[in-house]
């Protein structure tokens, strides 16, 4: 087949998951778990195959193409269509989404089998895969849209799936409503960000007259010269959308709570794919940001501040998934800082490697959690007190779960940035571009990288080393093959991922330059690489010194003694939630209360009620005339007649 014809396959990356979810929705429940899980994985796997074919086709025609499916909206001169854009950037995203997505689907077959039983509703198994496939479809729409409006459909679609999957066990959680609240929080926080994106889109529409990527970006320079203020507004409102979806300051608060969802969801949506949509958006719109240096500075600082801020919180967490969640926020901060600095390729590179090793870490954490859960059910007296996510109640798991331990170790080292694993190369590129352009950013990011290594070391030691802290940890068992196989594949990718953009070869750089324009490939800098490696080793080493030397894990975190109030802040997430509660939520609730009780009940309802009461009182008075005596009526008629006559006579 002619390679350009391969491009026409692109709608299938959306339709295959949709077909999968349709079949599962209709008959999946009747055909059983294996069928539903395999079908969903197959749908995503085929989407992955299509993505590979597209990548192959792109090697011959690097300029890519746009495949128009249908017209959508036509109003006057304005037209929007359902069109799929195939270029090197979107195909990279497609490969990540469907590739990592497929592995997580396979993992979920094993994980959800236990999870639905642990939570006591086996019938919900199929629903999970329906939601996962819906997510893949929405994410594909997001990444391969050729205009902002279609991208927004995907953007909202993944937000919906995120909501549905965080609240998958909606009747569970704190007070039986905790998960539902977490889902709601994610959705509403994202609404704030989406508001920003929507405003940016409307501004683009009014100033460019179109929403199509190629037309908008080709006019960008002209508009930027004519109306610099508008361009600044567009980029900053877009940043608000990015902050919502990619969990940046100040809208990151939803992501840690999103860990209420099942672990594969945390891996797929809240680590590997959806939360990187913001990074993708900035990368896609890099033309805009290149024209507005002020916005670039803001984006860079938001990213860098988030990277450091979230890293400090991750140090003080005890929940195995919460640590990874804050780590994700921190790494997203790295990516946003990178794309803000104009190092789009470095940001995308980190996005890809992060999808590998953070997906791996989450899935491995899920394996650990279920191992501990199995340990809880061990023996004659099932243990219900252990929290299977609390790292303080684990320990020594490397003996019970050797395979999970090894892949976790690989993922953690990749995240920490130990050469030659994937994370080292991608993070090094970001640090390098910071080093070359903005030393202040470099210092912030380097410190965040050090903390990353530290909290990953802390987590490794608390979970896998030392002695088991509870009976459950002692009796934890290794997960089945369907769970561990995706882990091994992801671990291999985490080891080899650095080769994607190996210094000197720059495969990804060349690949993306066809879409993003020719950039100057980052030259490998031994000094920066040395600093970053030294920081990572320092972090791991200090973690070992603090947590690893004593076999008994102290009841109080050793850092607490050393850092005191600072650790208190890290432990309680710097009171950001409480701050928002006090500054935004409570005044909002109070004003809603005021509106409801004083304005609505007090004024508006009183107007209506007063009218009714007045009419009633008037009627009370008038009804006295209707006394039932005909003679009275006759008298009144007579009087009336006399009055009318008198009026007529004396007019």
């Amino acid at each position, binding site marked *: 087949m002619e390679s350009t014809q391969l491009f026409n396959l692109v709608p299938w990356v959306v339709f295959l998951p949709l077909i999968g979810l349709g079949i599962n929705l209709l008959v999946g429940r009747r055909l059983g778990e294996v069928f539903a899980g395999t079908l969903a994985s197959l749908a995503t796997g085929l989407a992955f195959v299509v993505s590979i074919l597209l990548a192959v086709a792109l090697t011959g025609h690097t300029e890519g193409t746009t495949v128009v499916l249908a017209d959508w909206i036509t109003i006057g001169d304005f037209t929007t269509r359902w069109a799929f854009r195939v270029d090197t950037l979107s195909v990279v995203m497609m490969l990540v989404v469907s590739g990592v997505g497929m592995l997580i689907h396979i993992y979920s077959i094993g994980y959800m089998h236990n999870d639905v039983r642990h939570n006591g509703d086996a019938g919900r198994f199929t629903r999970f895969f329906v939601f996962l496939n819906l997510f893949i479809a929405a994410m594909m729409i997001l990444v391969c849209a050729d205009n902002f409006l279609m991208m927004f459909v995907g953007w909202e679609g993944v937000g919906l799936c995120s909501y549905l999957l965080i609240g998958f066990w909606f009747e569970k959680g704190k007070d039986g409503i905790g998960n539902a609240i977490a889902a709601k929080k994610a959705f509403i926080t994202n609404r704030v960000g989406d508001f920003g994106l929507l405003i940016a889109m409307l501004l683009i529409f009014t100033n460019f007259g179109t929403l199509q990527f190629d037309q908008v970006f080709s006019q960008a320079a002209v508009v930027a010269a004519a109306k610099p203020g508008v361009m600044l507004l567009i980029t900053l409102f877009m940043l608000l959308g990015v902050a919502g979806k990619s969990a940046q300051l100040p809208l990151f608060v939803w992501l840690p709570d999103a860990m209420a969802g099942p672990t594969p969801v945390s891996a797929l949506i809240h680590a590997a794919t959806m939360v990187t949509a913001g990074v993708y958006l900035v990368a896609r719109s890099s033309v805009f940001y290149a024209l507005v240096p002020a916005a670039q500075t803001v984006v860079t600082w938001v990213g860098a501040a988030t990277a450091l801020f979230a890293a400090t919180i991750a140090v003080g967490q005890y929940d195995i998934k919460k640590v990874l969640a804050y780590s994700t926020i921190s790494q997203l901060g790295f990516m946003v800082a990178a794309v803000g600095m104009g190092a789009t390729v470095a940001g995308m590179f980190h996005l890809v490697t992060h999808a590998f090793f953070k997906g791996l870490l989450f899935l491995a954490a899920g394996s650990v959690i279920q191992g501990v859960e199995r340990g809880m059910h061990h023996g004659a007296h099932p243990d219900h007190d252990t929290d299977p996510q609390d790292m303080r109640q684990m320990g020594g798991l490397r003996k019970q779960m050797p395979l999970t331990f090894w892949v976790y170790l690989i993922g953690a080292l990749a995240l920490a940035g130990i050469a030659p694993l994937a994370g080292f190369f991608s993070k090094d590129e970001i640090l390098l571009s910071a080093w070359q352009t903005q030393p202040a950013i470099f210092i912030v990011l380097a410190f965040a990288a050090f903390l990353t290594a530290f909290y990953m070391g802390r987590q490794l030691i608390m979970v896998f080393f030392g002695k088991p802290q509870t009976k459950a940890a002692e009796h934890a068992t290794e997960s089945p093959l369907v769970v561990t196989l995706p882990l091994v594949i992801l671990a291999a990718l985490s080891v080899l991922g650095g080769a994607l953009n190996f210094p000197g070869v720059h495969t990804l750089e060349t690949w993306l330059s066809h879409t993003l324009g020719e950039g100057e490939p980052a030259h490998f800098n031994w000094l920066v690489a040395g600093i970053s490696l030294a920081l990572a080793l320092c972090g791991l080493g200090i973690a070992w010194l603090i947590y690893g030397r004593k076999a008994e894990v102290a009841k109080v975190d050793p850092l607490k003694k050393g850092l005191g109030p600072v650790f208190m802040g890290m432990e309680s997430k710097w009171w950001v939630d409480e701050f928002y509660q006090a500054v935004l939520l409570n005044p909002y609730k109070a004003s809603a209360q005021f509106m409801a009780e004083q304005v609505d009940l007090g004024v508006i309802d009183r107007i209506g009620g007063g009218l009714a009461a007045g009419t009633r009182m008037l009627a009370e008075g008038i*009804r006295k*005339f209707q*006394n*039932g*005596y005909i*003679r009275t009526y006759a*008298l009144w008629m007579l009087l009336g007649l006399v009055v009318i006559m008198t009026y007529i006579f004396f007019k």
Partner: protein
Amino acid sequence: MIPIAFPLGLAIILFCMGIVGFIVRKNAIVIFMSLELMFNAANLLFITFANQFQQVDGQIFVIFIMVTAAAEVAVGLAMIVTIFRGKHNVDIDQLTNLKG
């Protein structure tokens, strides 16, 4: 020729008698009769002025009113009979079911 003041005065007297009778009496049949008095006062005025102005309209109208009154009496008496069957009297002051 009788001066026009006489029939007019008679009509006014008849009408006032009708009104007073309608308002002060209790018996439904007497009230009915008072009503007829007022009717006839009006009829008297019609033919008086018809005669005065030498026009036939007033005379024709009187015939119409008489027919209407006859019909009305038929209905009204039937109602009074029915009321009497139910209540065993025709005291208008006891018929206060429509009191508001």
